[in-house]
């Protein structure tokens, strides 16, 4: 923040500046549209390159002695902010996609239009009450009557929608994994091949290393000495620390290089229009 010139919003110059800049911005779009279309691909490539260049330069330009960063570093936050602000304008794409589909379904009463209506209603209600809870949490919606001991406020309704609705649906969905992990392990842990068996054996050892059940089975083994290595908790720890981590690290190296390569190809637009093939 604070890197941009500012005019107090009480001053009419501020509104003039706003208007002019907005006009200029739209004019820029018009001009872009008028430019010859064979310029478009190179322009996209240029913009992409410039987008990446900032971070590249910020990293590689030497930092003068006794300084926190180089001359680009102080704009890091601003760049991140601008990116997230412009990016958040794209939320419309998502809303149009989801709401659009269900709006049409509801309107034309296609199969399942009832569900679409519920979705639209929930969407409207949640948007409204999240904002109302932000701006007027204590405003009364339903006044206190005989049945009600206290009036219902925006905050109350938001609480029901968020805690009763969103949050508990979140954890319910998360908890489904508890069911599926059972059927998945029942199906997957078969001694079919060396690989499948290894998957199963290490999974079972680690499981037994975690619960009392395992402590019973090998609890009789001595705490120390060679034999202690065969206690489930120790075997499981050995697998997790000494067998898991090198494999994981090797994979990480590959993935890091993959990301590096993909970034280079994108940044320098080497991928001859993979995403944007049909350039009209």
């Amino acid at each position, binding site marked *: 923040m604070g890197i941009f010139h*500012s005019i107090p919003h009480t001053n009419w110059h501020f509104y003039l500046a706003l208007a002019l800049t907005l006009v200029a911005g739209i004019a820029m779009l018009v001009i872009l549209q008028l430019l010859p279309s064979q310029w478009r691909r190179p322009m996209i490539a240029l913009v992409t390159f410039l987008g*990446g260049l900032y971070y590249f330069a910020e990293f590689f330009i030497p930092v003068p002695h006794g300084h926190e960063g180089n001359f680009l570093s102080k704009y890091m936050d601003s760049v991140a902010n601008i990116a997230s602000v412009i990016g*958040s304008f*794209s939320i419309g794409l998502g809303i149009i996609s989801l709401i659009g589909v269900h709006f049409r379904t509801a309107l034309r009463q296609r199969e399942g239009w009832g569900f679409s209506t519920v979705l639209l209603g929930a969407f409207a209600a949640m948007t409204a009450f999240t904002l109302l809870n932000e701006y007027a949490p204590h405003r009364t919606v339903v006044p206190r009557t005989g049945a009600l001991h206290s009036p219902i406020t925006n905050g109350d309704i938001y609480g029901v929608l968020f805690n*009763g609705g969103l949050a508990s649906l979140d954890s319910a969905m998360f908890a489904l994994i508890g069911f599926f992990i059972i059927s998945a392990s029942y199906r997957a842990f078969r001694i079919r091949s060396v690989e499948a068996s290894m*998957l199963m054996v290490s999974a079972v050892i680690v499981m037994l290393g975690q619960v009392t059940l395992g402590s019973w089975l090998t609890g009789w083994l001595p705490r120390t000495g060679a034999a202690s290595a065969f206690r489930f908790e120790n075997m499981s720890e050995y697998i997790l620390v000494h*067998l898991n981590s090198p494999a*994981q690290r090797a994979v990480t190296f590959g993935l890091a290089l993959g990301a590096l390569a993909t970034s280079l190809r994108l940044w320098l637009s080497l991928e001859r229009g993979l995403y944007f093939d049909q350039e*009209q």
Partner: protein
Amino acid sequence: MMAPYLHHLLMPKLLLGAVGTIAIFSLVFRENKLYRLFEHLFLGLATGYGLATTWTQVLRTKWWDPMVVQGEWIWILVIPLGLMFYGVYTKKYAWMSRMIFGLYFGLAAGTVFQAFASEYVPQIRASFKPLFSAPPISHHQFGVLANNWIFLIILMCVLIYFLFAFEQNSPVVKRTAAAGRVMLMIAFGAIFGSTIMTREALLIDRVRFLLLDWLQINHFLH
């Protein structure tokens, strides 16, 4: 006696949470109307919440306030830039959306160098583990050295499995790569096993919510 209990069961927040949980759980038996209802409710709530918080947490704090309150007029430029996204819906302006996407491709790509240096090079360094040690070697030291050998061997096997440019037809490479896959499976098994507790604990917590917090069965038991 019954009235307060009923009142408790019907408390909106609890009731919605409980019925919603049951609806979601019903999916594991079969997709059904109740699940579908709450799925749509869920998506609606989530999208509405997303939209509202995009305003309260991003646009208002990072854009509107700086622009209107602090008077940083230049921020208005964000509107035409943001509009470019919507070119995607028309053939004529689609390329403009590609331009703004391009900007984001660039931003996403540019950060990789610093990330690689700060996240992954340390892991390279951490792999320099001694395989020998000056005698006398204690019992503990011996164990450490043995583990370092195992570390290096597994690291090599797995890395070699992930070589693509070289057809793995030389028996040595083939075997090493095969060993690499086996090592991977051991690692995957370990992860699978160590994840179960956390997942089941969560399911148990939801069932507790239904039986104890909502139905309060413990009151009937004693």
